[in-house]
């Protein structure tokens, strides 16, 4: 019995020691310093900087190429790449702002820029840009969107890419039905009707009814009415009677010309459904180009910007602009800024956007040969900079924008599709929330 007691003591000691050693061995992390209150330092312009990619995984390969090019040019600077899943980028930033551990440079899209900037985490970039080799080489439209999304006149983000709402359509189905490309709203509705044959499970359009439904709906609404401003004084134009009628017409497509399962469509389901089925048109953005290409091949589909009014005027909402921000807490701002400058230079920005299938922010990159070969990107670039295109600037600068456009109103949009709410009720509710958020924002600015 004594032997067994000794054995059990040894076992208990071994377990305890093992646990302690295991924990000690794994505790070789860092201290995660650098929260919102940290003012950082310019640093020596050498050493290691950390970069958070807000679309990690999908863009990892291209960022690693850019980082390799950068480290070749600046051998004294090392870039530590951290890929963050796109859907979790905002919560990762929010936690690091509160708890510490912010990076030196991070990908921050306009959809979350206001929320990060308002917490004092970002370095103003106006003066750095003014004295940089990038000055005058970035699309002024995108700089304006970045400034507006940051909540005022200060630039907190150097834009890298613009996305654009794109109407993808199946050229094979259009040809078989003898239809013209859906370049105008009238042609869009006619095609949606003609391509629908419910008995054969064929539909003209797929509508986004689930997560992310508000922006495409607003794109369709403003595109049809031609109203070019989101605000009329302090009140939003979103519930203008013309917009109400346009929304009612748009949601009228649900179940008539779309699958009934569209009620829960987020972009993943919507794109997968379009890529593998017999649906005529899909309203998404340039980001799904590669998915369509892989699934359908280049000959079976095309992508065009939002349809125009009959007079050729195109009105579309502003799409989120992706970009790079410098964090105030960085201890090596000089090196971090060098990385931003390099990543948005013509050659690297072109390379990045070719991979992402988006419109480059660097105007020299925008004339690259690959854009001339990629029709959807070329058309999007032309639309974004075209004289006939009017862009309705969505209020990304409102700290409540994400809550209003997602949690508060996506369930209402589903009620609207199901006929449990009218288009007027839906837009009046949305307008009321936006007007209040705008009034609050104006009080503080």
């Amino acid at each position, binding site marked *: *019995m004594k032997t*067994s*007691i000794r054995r*059990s003591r040894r*076992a*208990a000691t071994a*377990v305890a020691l093992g*646990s302690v050693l*295991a924990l000690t*061995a*794994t*505790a*070789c*992390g*860092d*201290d*995660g*310093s650098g929260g919102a209150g940290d003012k950082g330092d310019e640093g020596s312009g050498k050493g290691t900087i950390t970069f958070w990619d*807000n*679309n*990690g*995984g*999908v*863009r*990892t*390969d291209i960022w690693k190429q850019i980082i390799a090019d950068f480290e070749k040019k600046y051998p004294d600077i090392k870039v530590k*790449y*951290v*890929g*963050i*899943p*796109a*859907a*979790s980028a905002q*919560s*990762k930033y929010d*936690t*690091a702002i*509160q*708890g*510490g*551990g912010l990076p030196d440079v991070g990908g921050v*899209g306009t959809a979350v820029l206001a929320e990060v900037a308002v917490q004092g985490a970002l370095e103003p970039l106006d003066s750095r840009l003014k004295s940089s080799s990038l000055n005058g080489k970035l699309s002024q439209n995108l700089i304006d969107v970045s400034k507006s999304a940051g909540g005022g006149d200060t630039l907190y983000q150097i834009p890298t890419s613009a*996305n654009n709402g794109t109407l993808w359509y199946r050229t094979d189905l259009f040809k078989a039905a003898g239809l013209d490309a859906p370049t105008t709203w009238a042609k869009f509705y006619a095609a949606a009707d003609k391509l629908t044959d419910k008995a054969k499970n064929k539909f003209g359009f797929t509508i986004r009814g689930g997560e992310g439904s508000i922006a495409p709906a607003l794109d369709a609404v403003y595109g049809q009415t031609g109203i070019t401003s989101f605000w009329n004084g302090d009140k939003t134009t979103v519930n203008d009677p013309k917009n109400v009628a346009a929304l009612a017409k748009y949601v009228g497509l649900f179940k008539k010309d779309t699958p009934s399962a569209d009620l829960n469509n987020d*972009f*993943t389901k919507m*794109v*997968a459904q379009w890529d*593998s089925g017999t649906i005529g048109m899909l309203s*998404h*953005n*340039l*980001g*799904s180009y*590669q*998915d369509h290409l*892989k*699934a*359908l*091949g280049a000959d079976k589909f095309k992508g065009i910007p939002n349809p125009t009014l009959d007079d050729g005027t195109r009105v579309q909402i502003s799409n989120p602009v992706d970009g790079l921000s410098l964090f105030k807490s960085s201890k090596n701002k000089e090196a971090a800024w060098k990385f931003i400058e390099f990543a948005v230079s013509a050659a690297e920005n072109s390379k990045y956007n070719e991979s992402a299938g988006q419109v480059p922010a660097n105007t020299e990159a925008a004339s690259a040969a690959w854009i001339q070969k990629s029709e959807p990107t070329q058309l999007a670039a032309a639309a974004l900079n075209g004289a006939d295109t009017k862009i309705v600037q969505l209020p990304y600068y409102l700290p409540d924008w994400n809550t209003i456009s997602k949690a508060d109103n996506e369930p209402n949009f589903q009620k609207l599709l199901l006929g449990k709410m009218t288009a007027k009720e839906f837009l009046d509710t949305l307008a009321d929330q936006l007007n209040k958020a705008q009034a609050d924002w104006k009080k503080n600015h």
Partner: protein
Amino acid sequence: MITEIAPARERESAAPQQPRKVRRAWDEVPRWQIYVPLGIYLVFTLIPFYWILLFAFRPAGSTSLVPWPMTFDHFQKVWTERSFGVYFQNSVYVGVATLILTTVVALAGGYALARFEFRIKRTFMLALLCSQFVPGALLLVPLFQIFAKLQMINSLGSVIIAETVFQLPLSMILISGFIRNVPQSLEEAAWVDGCNRLAAFRIVVLPLLRPGLIAVGSFAFVHAWNHFLFALMFLSDQSKQTIPVGLNTLMGADSVDLGALAAGGIVAAVPVVIVFAFIQKWLITGFSAGAVKG
């Protein structure tokens, strides 16, 4: 006494007839009334899994409803290009370490709760129960700050500790239930034979707790294996990420590679399925045994 014994005899004599009655009633039910609902249920349950297999094994761009011609390209992509090999190793490490720590600490705590009386025992049990109502997201910032002070950000140890801490309350409650089901007289007999408390526990009680330990351990492993939030927040290096974070990186802001996502999903699910296949017998016994006395 006689009147009390008689009904007992009647019960004994009637007892063997009951299964026959049940069998007859079972025989009277048309088979389709059993198999059709079961079949419908299985179809609803298995179709999503079939779609995952379909997307994982059929070539990109194929619209075939069967995974033929079969390809392993998506698996190769996630395992090598998307570093799932590394994520898998990290997840195994986090899962196994959480399992061991949770089981060892819950065993000690559960024993104390089951065998000792102390003044704040009821309050302590209530606190353990209440801790189950606190979502992990609420504690992210304080945990982040604690781990930052301990220089443990970007270390797998931070995730292991956080997972263990969140697993412990329920595990302790369950294990204390299992230990209460073991008669204390067995331990006392071992004491009489010369064992001290620890030896009696190891020799007499521990073998009887096997179903409970398997239930608690597997629960801790599966939870740590699937948990996304702590790994996302406390780890930064790609070489230290776990499977759930890796799966999320397969879903871009505007683009999803469904083949790779399905293959990644299978890689993530296989260990859990294997664990459950081996332990399901003990798992059910374990949870039901722990549920008898709380």
